[in-house]
């Protein structure tokens, strides 16, 4: 298994509160990604990072921010959680940019419920 740890694995929070999900990797891979997975939508990219302090938006970035101060850590923050952000969040890593053909490796997921 790829060395990816997500925390927390499960969280219930109230609407309007800030939430931070952490992804930690031990593979020293350059690229890191945050996806969300919802029924009927599959996996959708939220944000990704191509290096320390280098991040870019994915297809569903509204309401989310990210930070990467170290190669091994990629944080996803919901500034003010809403019920529509109830989802399963997956962190992923890759050694090179995925379209060049390398595979990406996923963490085990973080289940977030916003009540």
């Amino acid at each position, binding site marked *: 298994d790829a060395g990816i740890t997500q925390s927390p694995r499960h969280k219930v929070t109230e609407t309007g509160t800030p939430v931070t999900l952490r992804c930690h990797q031990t593979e020293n891979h350059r690229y890191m990604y945050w996806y969300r997975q919802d029924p009927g939508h*599959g*996996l959708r*990219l939220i944000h990704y990072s191509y290096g320390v302090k280098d991040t870019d938006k994915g*297809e569903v970035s509204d309401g989310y921010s990210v930070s990467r101060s170290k190669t091994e850590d990629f944080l996803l923050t919901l500034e003010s959680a809403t019920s529509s952000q109830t989802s399963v969040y997956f962190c992923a890593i890759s050694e090179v940019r*995925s*379209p060049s*053909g390398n*595979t990406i*490796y996923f963490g085990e*997921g973080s289940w977030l419920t916003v009540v």
Partner: protein
Amino acid sequence: SQQGEEDPQALSIQEGENATMNCSYKTSINNLQWYRQNSGRGLVHLILIRSNEREKHSGRLRVTLDTSKKSSSLLITASRAADTASYFCATPSNTGKLIFGQGTTLQVKP
């Protein structure tokens, strides 16, 4: 927007039978990947096929790619109960990001 779309959405077979899942995509690609997701777990990479390849094998998995039809298929031969999972195809979008389909849920009955 979805780049890859799997078909069927759900498939139920008996152990020992073969399972075939299809993926269609919209734009030209240089590779296509298949992933498996067990219930409550993250996705696991299965196989990557490049645009200049027509078929690729990995154990009981056989993947084909038809770039003229913009489609790929994943065949699992001699299925086992442990193959029960969701299977996703993934393709690079025109902006370079990896886009996943909604997946095919496979149930293999013992």
